[in-house]
């Protein structure tokens, strides 16, 4: 096992990895059947899997939890009406059939027969209606009620297995929202656990949420009656594993060490600099997948000096040699982004933007000269009318992850050296960051978002007070709203894509409103004996434990 790159902070861990204790190694090589990548026989039923995860859920109620990183375990117990294939098309799950009317206002779902909740309740149209009406109550879930469900005029059970939802206005992302809504049993809504989630809140998934020890672990046991997996999954019938335990280990170095000493069998969240220990190592399987949504990007504030000047925004982008920076910060383990949409998106990513800007210091300097930033101060920064060319970025401390502070510092050094720009990166408390965002007195804002299916594009580019919750460039061009409204009004994927392509060309190529940096990804490392670990189709987050099995 060789470790090619180390950071100072993690060198200790690398040390431990480089010298694995002999006992386990020997034990591993003795079980000759465990040849990775070549499962000898079919999936084996039974066994317990222990998975080290980074994020503990604030609430275990899937309808209230907004943390992407908790989906991999919550989806063991909770399921929804539809699933999506990698190409973005919908397939049946708890609903076998669905229909959107010609005017795109009426959504009809036919439910699967014989689906049971963990508390014994049978899934019926009435259950779905209860779920929707509960979510329309702002005291239960204020964001759903004010968000996607505000478009709903009525929801009815026309018979025992048919649910009809009528919308007030056309809203294309609705099918994804309602199709991926985790359904709870009717009884769950009367549970005292409802808001915090837990064993009292029943779903229909292949595993039952058995117990929760806060700050420590979450335990699931197999739901023997389970027989309604969607076609996107690897098998049908009950899950292979008898039991799955998720351990909460927020420190990445501790997770890695625990996997290497075989105290855990699977972990998620591997820092780029340490990936080499698992990649191409026959003892482990290592997988990554790019997130959906929008890449991690810098958004230039178009309302304040100096980023209100397009030439400054373009110059900034040209002053950065992003490929070199990503290679040095992430040991080459991250994928560069070029557009306002993730390259992972099967329908809406505009590939033609790749390679169209960046790493051209001469052009950067020429642009800044044209814009009048011709003076230089004692520190070597450009000035205009005695004012330094300063662009401030407030990084909100709780959101600094994946070495994003280091990344911005590298950019800071480069734009200073290449173009005399003072890129002032300040890591601040979330409260202070919120204040600056509200006051819009920042130069750039860094952000990434995983909402798929165009929802992320709306959040970033609708008007700030009309659905553009994270319109961090404060872009108010009327074209943007026009494209987004048109895309919202049709469920035809190709037509939507045309509008989103036009938007990407406009904000990236024409206006230079943002500098896309890299596409965030999820990583899973597992012992070679663990089979069936992978990512969820289309949404790309780590998948639940349904298809996982353990070799003897």
């Amino acid at each position, binding site marked *: 096992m060789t470790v090619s790159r180390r950071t100072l902070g993690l060198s200790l861990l690398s040390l431990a990895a480089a010298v694995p*204790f002999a006992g386990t190694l020997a034990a591993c090589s003795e079980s000759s059947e465990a040849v990775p990548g070549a499962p000898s026989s079919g999936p084996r039923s039974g066994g317990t899997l222990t998975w080290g995860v980074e994020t503990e859920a*604030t*609430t275990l109620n899937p309808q209230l939890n907004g943390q992407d990183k908790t989906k991999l375990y919550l989806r063991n117990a909770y399921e929804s009406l539809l699933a999506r294939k990698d190409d973005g098309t919908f397939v049946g799950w708890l609903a076998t059939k669905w229909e959107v009317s010609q005017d795109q206002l009426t959504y009809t779902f036919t439910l699967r027969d014989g689906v049971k909740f963990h508390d014994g309740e049978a899934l019926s149209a009435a259950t779905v209606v209860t779920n929707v009406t509960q979510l329309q109550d702002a005291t239960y879930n204020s964001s759903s009620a*004010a968000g996607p469900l505000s478009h709903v005029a009525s929801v009815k059970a026309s018979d025992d297995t048919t649910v009809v939802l009528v919308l007030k206005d056309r809203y294309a992302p609705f099918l994804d929202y309602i199709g991926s809504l985790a359904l709870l049993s009717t009884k769950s809504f009367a549970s005292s656990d409802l808001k915090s989630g837990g064993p009292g809140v029943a779903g229909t998934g292949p595993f039952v949420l058995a117990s929760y020890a806060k700050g*420590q672990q979450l335990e699931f046991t197999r739901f023997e009656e389970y027989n309604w997996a969607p076609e996107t999954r690897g098998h049908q019938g009950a899950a292979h594993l008898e039991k799955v335990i998720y351990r909460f*280990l*927020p420190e990445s170095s501790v997770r890695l060490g625990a996997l290497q*000493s075989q105290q855990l069998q699977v972990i998620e969240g591997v820092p780029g600099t340490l990936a080499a220990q698992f990649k191409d190592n026959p003892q482990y399987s290592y997988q990554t997948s790019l997130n959906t949504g929008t890449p991690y990007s810098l958004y230039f504030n178009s309302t304040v000096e100096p980023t209100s000047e397009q030439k400054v925004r373009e110059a900034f982008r040209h002053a950065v040699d992003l490929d070199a920076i990503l290679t040095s910060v992430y040991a080459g383990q991250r994928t560069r982004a070029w557009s306002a949409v993730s390259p992972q998106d099967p329908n809406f990513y505009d590939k033609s933007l790749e390679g169209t800007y960046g790493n051209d210091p001469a052009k950067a300097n020429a642009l800044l000269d044209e814009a009048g930033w011709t003076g230089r101060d004692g520190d070597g920064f450009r000035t205009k009318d005695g004012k330094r060319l300063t662009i401030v970025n407030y990084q909100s401390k709780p959101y600094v992850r994946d070495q994003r502070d280091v990344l911005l510092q590298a950019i800071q050094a480069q734009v200073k050296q290449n173009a005399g720009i003072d890129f002032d990166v300040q890591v601040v408390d979330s409260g202070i960051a919120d204040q600056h965002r509200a006051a819009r007195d920042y130069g750039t804002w860094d952000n990434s978002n995983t909402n798929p299916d165009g929802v992320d594009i709306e959040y970033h580019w609708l008007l700030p007070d009309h659905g553009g*919750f994270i319109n961090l460039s404060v872009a108010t061009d009327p074209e943007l709203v026009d494209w987004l409204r048109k895309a919202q009004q049709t469920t035809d994927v190709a037509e939507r894509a045309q509008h989103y392509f036009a938007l990407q060309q406009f904000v990236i190529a024409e206006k230079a409103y943002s500098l896309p940096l890299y596409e965030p990804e999820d990583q899973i490392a597992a012992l070679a004996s663990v089979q069936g670990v992978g990512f969820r189709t289309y949404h790309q987050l780590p998948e639940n434990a349904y298809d996982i099995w353990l070799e003897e």
Partner: protein
Amino acid sequence: MTVTEIGRVSSLVDTEAERAGTTSPASEQRVGLRTTLFAVLRRLAGGVVVLWLTVTAAFVALQLAPGSVVDALLPVEQRTPEAVAALLTEWGLDRPVWEQYLDYLLRLTHGDLGTSYVLHRPVSEVIGTQLGPTVQLALTGLLVALVLAVLLSTVTAGRPRASRIASGVELAVVSIPEFWLGIVLLVVFSFRLGWFPVAGANGLQSLVLPALTLGLGVVGLVSQVLREGVERSLEQPWALSVRARGSSETALRLRHSLRHAALPVTTLLAWLIGGLFGGVIVVEQVFGRPGIGVVALQAAQGRDLPVVLGVALFSAVVYVAVNTLVDLLALVIDPRLRTEARG
């Protein structure tokens, strides 16, 4: 008070008290009881005031902190005016601040600590369920620190070379951040040797490394104070008379010097509990242990006001209780204090 100052004060007390002479045991006991009772009552009254001040200070601090609760609770893409309004009503945050404050105090007198904004559980339940593992960890850590400190200080005191080396090592260990100490112990004893499990609070085995990390973080300070005390007491005239009675050096140190040196340490204990609580936050995080530390950290980051207030209140209760106990303990350890209290 610095370490040397504590040592100096204790040695002053020593000399005065050694001169003070004798008192009859019976009167000593009676006075001791009355003093104790008075001390407890005074402490109780003071304790209530301390709790109120703590809650008020925490409340004010959280109001003054930048940013709003809504920002912390609602992801930015869900912050519609309707959603914000619903959230404010749900938690009663649309009322004036003084009303929220008075309401909180009123409910507090009924033992109601409120409900966590983030976890949606009663605060008393959140703290209650997380208390066990933290107490276990803190007490074991304290035990580790005390045992090691007593060993280190009695063995090395008065032996210049040994004492210099020990003191250097102690200071070095104290200076290592607990985060690193924890990782180093994990790498060696869990990842490489496989002796102890990495995570959780399952039984004694999983307690060893966290307690060691926590204990090592403070052992240096305790042993420095203790050694200084032992060394000073060994120089006292009475030490000579104990030696003259034919007592062995070990017996002198364990039976006499340690008792003299223990007094400043008990005073330090109250401070130590605070230090341990700070360490608990880091240790729980590194080892993936449940407990109050992690709860407090997450609540502070997430502006979970009721939980922050609950934890602040809890810490104040512990602080008051420990201080009271320490004062009583001092009376038990040092009979001279009981005499002085009478005079």
